[in-house]
C-alpha cells in the first residue's frame, strides 16, 4: 500500500478544468517527481492533495485514509507537509517564528531540537534567526520554506518548484538537501520544471501535460526517453 494514492483526480477552476483525471502513487520512502511545463496542472494537483482546493472528481488517499472532506489543517496533522510554490513564507515574522509556526501542531518537547536541526541543515538561517523573513533572498526563503515544512515531522513532504528563480549554485544546494532528506527516509513528492535535476533524484517520474499524465517511468528511464529529452531537457 503506497503512502499517497491519487486516483482519477479532476480539478476545475469554474468551467476550466486544470487537472483532467490523473492517477499516481507514492510509496513510503520514495521520491516521486512530477515534471511538466507551466500550466500543466502540477501546482493544482499539489494544492488539491493538501486540501487547499476541492477536486471535482477522483480520490486522494494518504496513509490509508481517504482525504475527501478533510480540511487542509487536518491533512497536515496526518503527516503530509507542503512547501508551496513561490515559498510563501510569512514575511513580517522572523525566521524563527516561521519555523515555530511550521511546528504549530506539535506540543512535544522536541521542537527546539528540530529548529536547531534546520539551522544545521541551512546555517544561513541560523545566523539570521531573528531577522524578518521578508528580508531574505530568494534562495534563503526557499531554504526557510523547506525547513518550515519539515518542522511538523512529516511522513511525506510535497515540494512545489523549489528551484524556481534560483541560481544554479543555490539550486544545487537545494537538490542535495532533497537527496539528504530522502536518505533520512522522508517520502517526497517533487514538482519541478528543472527536469534533469528532478529525474536524477527520483525513483519514479511522471510527465504532466495540460492536465494529464502523458508519460510515466522510473527516473533513469525518463532521463533517457527521447520525447522527454526533447521536450524538457532542451535537446533536439
Amino acid at each position: 500500500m503506497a503512502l499517497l494514492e491519487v486516483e482519477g483526480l479532476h480539478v476545475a477552476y469554474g468551467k476550466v478544468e486544470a487537472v483532467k483525471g490523473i492517477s499516481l502513487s507514492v510509496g513510503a520512502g520514495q521520491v516521486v517527481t512530477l515534471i511538466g511545463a507551466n500550466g500543466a496542472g502540477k501546482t493544482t494537483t499539489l494544492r488539491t492533495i493538501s486540501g487547499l482546493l476541492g477536486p471535482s472528481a477522483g480520490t486522494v488517499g494518504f496513509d490509508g485514509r481517504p482525504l475527501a472532506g478533510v480540511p487542509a489543517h487536518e491533512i497536515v496533522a496526518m503527516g503530509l507537509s507542503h512547501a508551496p510554490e513561490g515559498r510563501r513564507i510569512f514575511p513580517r515574522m522572523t525566521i524563527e517564528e516561521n519555523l515555530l509556526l511550521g511546528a504549530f501542531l506539535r506540543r512535544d518537547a522536541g521542537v527546539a531540537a528540530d529548529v536547531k536541526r534546520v539551522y544545521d541543515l541551512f546555517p544561513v538561517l541560523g545566523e539570521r534567526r531573528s531577522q524578518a523573513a521578508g528580508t531574505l533572498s530568494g534562495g534563503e526563503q526557499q531554504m526557510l520554506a523547506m525547513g518550515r515544512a519539515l518542522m511538523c515531522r512529516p511522513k511525506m513532504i510535497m515540494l512545489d518548484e523549489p528551484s524556481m528563480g534560483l541560481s544554479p549554485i543555490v539550486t544545487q544546494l537545494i537538490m542535495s538537501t532533497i537527496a539528504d532528506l530522502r536518505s533520512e527516509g522522508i517520502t517526497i513528492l517533487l514538482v519541478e520544471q528543472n527536469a534533469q535535476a528532478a529525474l536524477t533524484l527520483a525513483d519514479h517520474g511522471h510527465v504532466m501535460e495540460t492536465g494529464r499524465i502523458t508519460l510515466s517511468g522510473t527516473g533513469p528511464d525518463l532521463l533517457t526517453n527521447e520525447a522527454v529529452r526533447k521536450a524538457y531537457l532542451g535537446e533536439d
Partner: protein
Amino acid sequence: MTLTELLQLTTGGVVLGAMYGLIAVGYTMVYGIVQLINFAHGEIFMLGAFGALFVYAWVPALHEISLWLALPIMLAAGTVISVVAAVAAERFAYRPLRGAPRLAPLITAIGLAIVLQQLIFLYAPLRELRDDRWETTVGAKQPQLFPQLPGEALQLGGVTVQWADVLTLGFAVVAMLGLAYFVRRTRTGRAMQAAAQDPDIARLMGIDVDKIIVIAFAIGGALAAAAGLAHGLRYGQITFDMGFIAGLKAFTAAVLGGIGNVYGAMLGGIVLGVVESLAAGGLSYVDAVQQFGGGAWKDVWAFVVLILVLLIRPRGLLGERTGDRA
C-alpha cells in the same frame, strides 16, 4: 481658553477615543484576516449595551446592590449577547460567502446591521421604571435610560473625571494588555498573525483558519460589548441606532491607526477622540469660527480627519501593510 479647560477637553477626548478604540479592534482584527468591513460591528456594540441593560432590568436583585457590584454581571450579559451575535453572523452570513465577489459580503453586512437594529427596535424585551413601578415594554422605540454609577465625580487638578470615564479607560487598558499578551504569547495569537499574513499557508501549517476567524469575531464582539456598557454608563441612555455613528467612528479609528493593527486601532481611536473633542470644544473659543464648534459639528470634524488621513497617510499611523493582497 485656559489650560484647565484644554486639559478637560483632552481628557474627554481620550475617554471618548478609548471607547472608539475598543470598538475599532473588532473591525481591524476581522479586516486583517478576511478583508471584510464588518458593517454590522457597530450593531454588535449596540447589542452589548442592550445586553447589559436587559440583565439589569430583569434581575431585581441587581437593583438592591451597588451598581459597581452589578457591573460584572452586566458586562458578562452584554459580552454573551455580543459574542453570540458576532459569531453567528460569521457562521451563517459571512462564511458561506467567502470567496464570493467582494460586494456580496459587504451588502450582507449592511443587511445584517439593519436586521440587528430592527430586532432591538421592534422586539427588545425591556423593563422601565415608571412612577416607581417597573413596567414591561417590547421594542426599544424610545431612548432607554441606563443606570448610573453612584458617587461624586473625581476632581484631578481642576479636571472633572466621571467614574464612567475611569471605567472606560480601565476597560481599554485591560483590553490592550490582554490583546498584547494574546497576540505575542499565545499559540492562538500567533496563529492569528499567520492567518492574517497568508491564510492559505497558515492552513498548511496546520492552523484551522475558520476557527481563527471565529475567534477574531468573538474577541471583537467582547470588546465591543465592554464599549457598549461604557457608553451606557457615560451617556445615561442607549438607543437602537447608536451603533451606526459609533461604528463609523470606530472604523475611522481603525483606518487612522492602520487597518489590521490592533494597537493602531486603539491609538487611532484616541487620536480621533481627542481631535473631535478639541475641535468641538476648541473652535467655540475662537470668534471667527465660533459657530463651527460645539457638539453639532463634531462628527463633521471626525470625518474631515478621515479624509485627511487618506490623503496624507493612507496606511494609517501604525500601518505596516504595503499593498493590497490579491
